[in-house]
């Protein structure tokens, strides 16, 4: 390897590190703390830490990470949790690293050295200046652009461009967000941030497989790391619940599912179909079920919800229904099946594989729905919204159509002009109509709401 990887990059080969078995638990615990407190997501040595202490921190980082991997490798639910938190940590560090070469080297490691080039190298290879020929400009990163995102003002160099072989970043090619030249995709780092995170998670999963092999090979190891696994289970569960509730903007115990006014159009429509026709497809059942769960509905309430609304209950007692049809509901809650604590799919997944109101309902019916739902609003506002939404649907920009509808409904704008997840829609709608007074914004069509787009819900 002809390039040096930064210490914060957890897939870097650490070399030989020895940690006494007695210290394993404390190493793992420190690593877990890092996930919970973003203050500890540092990548460079702060001035108040000595070189020795910094080295110790790095050993703790690598060792702790290795132990966490061992502990979760045989439990798919915990493995999935660790993948998500490691993915978040990686993304944060990748975005915040102030060294552009570091970013390039990480990309080289993830995608293979021959598949990554800087624009300068590309200029030399092709003997012309890409910036000049294609009238490109690297606008310097504006901190204000990201200050409301989850990264705050720590973002560095995200507007700079790199060149990646096109077949390594298929979603970006499909979205036409790359300048393609002779098989090289010239892209802004900001545009590939999520694709890079997915690649990191993919490679992380294959490393987990190796941890699993170690556990299976060394017989007493599983017993030794059991306390670590128990600790992870405890933290993962509390983080998951707290995370979901905090993302929804409600206190734990409050129930967003009781307020259909805050449901996104896809769920409202599916519930309407369920209530009128008595059944949905398997995928649609799953979409509604996972949404209601994350909106705070407990499993017993969900049994009742489906028993009351679905025709599956015909000739069946409630107990029989719970026993037979309830399997799918228990699956959603991770009680049956693979034991995974599922979240509802993202908007992109809904568009392709589940139900998206904007992608799958006929445009004429959507227009009719809007006219009926907002009959009290001024005609000119409705006409303008219908015009905008129709144009976005025709251009297949369904998530933007949803955001435009959200503005019509709440009077709040969605930054980034796109809804990415049904829970984000619900959170904001809930905040608007049922949140604390201090959170309320004026009912002004031009007001700016916080960035829904950059928040992500793990699916």
């Amino acid at each position, binding site marked *: 390897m002809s390039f040096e990887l930064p210490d914060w990059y957890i897939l870097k080969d650490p070399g030989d590190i020895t940690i006494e078995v007695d210290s394993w638990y404390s190493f793992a615990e420190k690593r877990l703390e890092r996930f919970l407190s973003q203050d500890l997501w540092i990548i460079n040595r702060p001035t108040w830490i000595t070189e020795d202490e910094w080295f110790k921190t790095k050993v703790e980082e690598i060792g702790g990470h290795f132990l966490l991997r061992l502990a979760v490798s045989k439990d798919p639910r915990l493995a999935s949790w660790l993948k998500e938190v490691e993915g978040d940590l990686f993304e944060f560090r990748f975005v915040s690293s102030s060294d552009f070469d570091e970013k390039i080297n990480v990309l080289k490691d993830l995608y293979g050295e021959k598949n990554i080039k800087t624009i300068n190298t590309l200029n030399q290879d092709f003997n012309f200046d890409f910036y000049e020929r*294609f*009238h490109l400009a690297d606008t310097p990163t504006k901190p204000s652009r990201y200050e409301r995102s989850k990264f705050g003002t720590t973002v560095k160099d995200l507007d700079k461009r790199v060149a990646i072989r*096109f*077949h390594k970043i*298929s*979603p970006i*090619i*499909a*979205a*036409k*967000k*790359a*300048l*393609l*030249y*002779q*098989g*090289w995709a010239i892209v802004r780092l900001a*545009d590939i941030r999520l694709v890079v995170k997915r690649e990191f998670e993919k490679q992380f999963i294959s490393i987990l497989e190796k941890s699993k092999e170690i556990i299976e090979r060394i017989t007493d190891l599983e017993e030794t790391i059991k306390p670590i696994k128990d600790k992870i289970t405890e933290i993962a569960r509390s983080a998951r619940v707290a995370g979901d509730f905090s993302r929804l903007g409600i206190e734990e115990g409050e129930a967003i599912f009781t307020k259909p006014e805050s449901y996104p159009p896809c769920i409202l429509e599916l519930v309407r179909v369920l209530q009128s026709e008595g059944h949905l497809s398997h995928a649609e059942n799953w979409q509604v079920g996972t949404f209601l769960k994350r909106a705070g509905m407990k499993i017993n309430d969900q049994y009742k919800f489906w028993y009351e609304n679905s025709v599956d209950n015909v000739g069946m007692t409630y107990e029989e229904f719970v026993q037979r049809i309830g399997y799918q509901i228990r699956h959603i809650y991770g009680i049956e099946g693979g034991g995974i604590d599922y979240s509802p799919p993202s908007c992109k997944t809904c568009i392709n594989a589940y139900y998206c109101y904007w992608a799958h309902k006929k445009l004429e019916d959507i227009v009719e729905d809007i006219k009926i739902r907002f009959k009290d609003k001024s005609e000119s506002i409705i006409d303008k919204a219908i015009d905008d939404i129709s144009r976005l*649907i*025709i*251009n*297949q920009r369904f998530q933007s159509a949803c955001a435009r509808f959200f503005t019509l409904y709440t009077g709040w704008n969605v930054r980034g002009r796109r809804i990415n997840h049904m829970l984000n829609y619900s959170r904001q709608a809930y905040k608007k109509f049922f949140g604390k007074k201090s959170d309320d914004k004026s009912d002004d069509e031009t007001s700016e709401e916080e960035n829904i787009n950059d928040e992500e819900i793990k699916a």
Partner: protein
Amino acid sequence: MMKKLKPETISKYYEDHFPLDRFTSLIDKTDFHNREFGFVVGEDRFVRNISFHKPKNMLDFMIKNSVKHAYVGAVYETPPSKDFPIQKIKWKYREFIFDIDIDEYDAYNEDGKYVGVRTCGCKGDVFCKDCWSLVQDAAVFIDKTMKEDFGFKEVIWFYSGRRGVHAWILDEITRNFDQPQRLAILDYLTFVHDKKRTQSIEEIPNEAKPLRNRIYALVAKSYLEKSFLPSLLNPVNPLLQCRNCNSKMKAYEILSETIGKEVKGMSFDKIESSLKQYQIKCPYCHGEDLENFSRKELEEELERLNEFGLTENKAKRILRRIKEIDNFDHNQYNILIPENTKLRKYFSSQILLYRYPRIDRKVTMDTRRVSRMPFSVHGKTGQIAIDITKNIRDFYPDSTPQVQDFF
């Protein structure tokens, strides 16, 4: 109407004229025994999950069975067979193939009315030189995009034998592409969504600059030359429509037949007066009310353009100017089309709707699909799936040899 193909003619073609070496040079011979083939044999019986030990065995099968259609599929870890069909064995690779069919440009509304982009009156498998230019333009556009944007070197084009053309991308990297990778390239090339129904148009992107520039250089030029107010400057062979049965027909053909001499270059007024003079009736329902459909379309389009401030004179100026420009590009487009946001938006959607390539997505995406074998006979037309790489810009199917021509 083509005479029914005799089995012995087909067998003789495969025995004496099928270029086996050229075919096998397209595919990797080392894995030949693990490749799937499919054939239409006997009375239109389609068989697949067939593999052969050597190319010669394949040719013997084709000769012996006088195969009407021959298809080539993917390569698997083990030879596909009836007992080990492709669903049960592991996929290894398949060539990366594009299929452009002329009927991909057709669309019908809920009432079954034609709302496709072919303005010549052809639909389905039927085509004329006017509408075939859509296929030619699409092939040139995709060929350039594959070479310039994706850097592929070996792009070979074949006539499909009936209603379209196929591109085989032979660069080694492509054959191992999985479905998402193939789909990504397809999506990069797709601007007309749901093309058989709503035909919704995606906006031209800013970031993908070479693609954007190519759209202006090739597709916009083609639109302005061939589809933008085609009858405004010069008389064209207009379409007539029967108000009784809605059938469409070309005016020069129907007038020539009635008058008994070749008619061309007639103005709209002259055509309409001739229709009355010779009391021409609809050949389909014998109705007497034939309307000049092309004139109606022209007037409607001029009215629409007028709303954006584009007068008839300005439109004529655009049409005259476009003929003079050899190397049309984005900058010239900007000079030529008046700076009006609504007009430009309208133009870009029309350009993509009427002239942008439409690809049969399933052929490219499906990694287990079988595709027509290059150089084989098309059982319905008797034409050979010939290599047209050197003249994709000018290739028209009537120049294709038929299997009978060899004897």
